[in-house]
């Protein structure tokens, strides 16, 4: 027989637990709030303001007119101009721009004969971004003079599109490298966030702090095994995933190892910091989820970073995953080398050093 009294007893007890644990209480409120903000405000599947560059080989007034018309479409944000198509392509490889609009020298003649006016070089690895750019292909152009009537309306293409890195526009090409960031974020932060709390809960901490072990030694020693775990995971995703889904590997192995190690270190220290903040394993788990949600959703893994409002981009920059997604896609898909993406790498290393210091400063070899 079910007894209401006993059910009631258990319910009351659970409420008592809940009210003792301020963190759980906070999470009950914060998780829906953060989700609401993320999905409602930050995540936007309509891509706008894609950073692009312009190369004008014609030096003509028409090029400036067309550039202006492209700009007011609001799909792109012109962030740079380059002198040669090669320089623009290098900027695409380095991840500074997603596409380049290249006006050929013979632009006026092309307009006169009604041919496509210019060429887009598009980084097609992200299908959502490249779709938005492909929509520009037949955008109608209003040209003052010289163009034959009927040209550059919706029916005839205004631009020629050259798709780089993922010409078949398969979404898995972009997803699989990004997945490494998601998997590493989940496992690395979770493992280490439990590391210190678990020992505190089990009573091992009182022993550890009576030994000569220094906080920093304890922390580094705890992290190192997980570096190996992370490398194995990346190996599985990129090795197996790359083979099954035919992911091109454009970069160098050393660059991949370098950026991955930097990201693993950053994620591990983030977990460690959580471990020094939480008092119980449950709290550590909740804080991990709390960090995981925005860091995965804002990282650009599923939803393009370029489509997010500026404020959300600033927040995204705070999470290591955002930087790593950029790095790993750059290395794997575009063959970027570390020199191209120094700011992201330095950011990850700085993040690691800072958090390791904060975590070991927060960790006292005291019980009070």
């Amino acid at each position, binding site marked *: 027989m079910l007894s209401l009294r006993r059910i009631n007893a258990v319910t009351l007890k659970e409420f008592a637990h809940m009210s003792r644990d301020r963190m759980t209480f906070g999470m009950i409120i914060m998780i829906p709030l953060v989700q609401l903000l993320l999905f409602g405000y930050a995540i936007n599947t309509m891509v706008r303001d894609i950073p692009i560059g312009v190369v004008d080989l014609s030096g003509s007034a028409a090029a400036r007119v067309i550039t202006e018309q492209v700009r007011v479409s609001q799909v792109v944000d012109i962030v740079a101009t380059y002198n040669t198509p090669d320089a623009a392509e290098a900027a695409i490889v380095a991840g500074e721009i997603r596409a380049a609009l290249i006006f050929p020298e013979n632009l006026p003649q092309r307009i006169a004969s009604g041919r496509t006016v210019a060429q887009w070089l598009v980084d097609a690895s992200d299908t959502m971004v490249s779709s938005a750019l492909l929509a520009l292909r037949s955008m109608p152009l209003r040209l003052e003079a010289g163009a034959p009537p009927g040209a550059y309306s919706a029916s005839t293409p205004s631009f020629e599109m050259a798709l780089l890195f993922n010409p078949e526009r398969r979404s898995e090409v972009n997803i699989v490298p990004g997945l490494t960031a998601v998997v590493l974020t989940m496992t690395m932060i979770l493992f280490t966030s439990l590391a210190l709390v678990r020992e505190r809960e*089990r*009573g*091992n*901490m*009182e*022993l550890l*702090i*009576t*030994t*000569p*072990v220094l906080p920093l030694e304890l922390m580094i020693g705890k992290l190192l095994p997980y570096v190996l775990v992370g490398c194995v995971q990346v190996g599985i995703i990129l090795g197996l995933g790359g083979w099954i889904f035919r992911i091109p590997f454009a970069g160098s192995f050393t660059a991949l190892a370098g950026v991955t190690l930097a990201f693993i270190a950053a994620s591990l220290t983030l977990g460690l910091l959580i471990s020094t903040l939480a008092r119980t394993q449950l709290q550590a788990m909740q804080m991990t989820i709390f960090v995981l949600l925005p860091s995965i959703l804002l990282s650009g893994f599923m939803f393009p970073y370029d489509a997010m409002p500026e404020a959300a981009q600033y927040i995204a920059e705070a999470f290591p995953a955002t930087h790593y997604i950029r790095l790993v896609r750059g290395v794997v898909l575009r063959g970027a080398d570390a020199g191209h993406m120094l700011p992201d790498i330095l950011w990850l290393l700085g993040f690691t050093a800072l958090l390791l210091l904060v975590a070991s400063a927060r960790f006292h*070899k*005291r*019980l*009070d």
Partner: protein
Amino acid sequence: MTDAAIVANGLTRRFGDLVAVNDVDLEIAHGQIYGFLGPNGSGKTTLIRMLCGLLTPSAGTARALDFQLPEQAEPLRRRIGYMTQKFSLFDDLSCKENLNFLARIYGLDNSQRQMRITTLLNQFNLEPLSSRQAGAMSGGQRQRLALAAATLHEPELLFLDEPTSAVDPQNRRDFWETLFDLSEAGTTLLVSTHYMDEAERCHQLAILDNGNLKTQGVPADLMGALKGRVIDVQGDGLRAVRQQLMTSNEVLSAAQQGDRLRVLLKKPVQDIGVFKQWLPGDQTLHCEPAKATLEDVFVETTQADETPC
């Protein structure tokens, strides 16, 4: 270097309003086994934690092995061993793995480590258990492992917080033999307990109650000081006798033990006849002076300032 391994002056620790340890003065000589005897919550663990630098005192000072606490806790750590009240080795590591881990932490090199661990496994009868996970060991086995771990780096000062709480009497005897071996070898030991028989084995003893250090001294002296104050009463109707005695101003406590009543007096009586006057007149009771035990000392020190209940 002073003579004492530990010196504390006015050592106090508060947790909010609660005073867990109150104004404790201590001086513990090298090579002694020094006992802290006290009931649950009397502040034994808190005092030990302060003395090994894990808790910061709210007031007072302490020095251990000539290191000022808590400032110099770090260099002190290499020279002390601490066996926590709650088992604090890793449950999912084997006996040997636990010892190996700690030996490395204490910086023993490979050959030292292997030699030391072989010696300890042997000394503590842990060889047959060396590959068993600590979580799967019995209470007594675990406690032997914990002591082995605490002595791994041959500390000069060893803190043992209720080391035998999960141990049967036979094992407790063996355990104490090991403690005397360590003491013989020059180690200073601090042992907390709430067992009287254990407390009696210490060279020196301090009785703690409610955070206060009530008395300290050699156990035999403490018991000797109660000469003439303990009387055994035998006969019928002991419950009623006890009721009567407890109303007397001369009696500190009266506790029944089987068919006898153990009476502790506030002042010694020379003549048993004087005592008999306080008994109900119509009874035929056999009274004789008894040798004081540590329990009597304990009752005496912890109840002296309370009204008998």
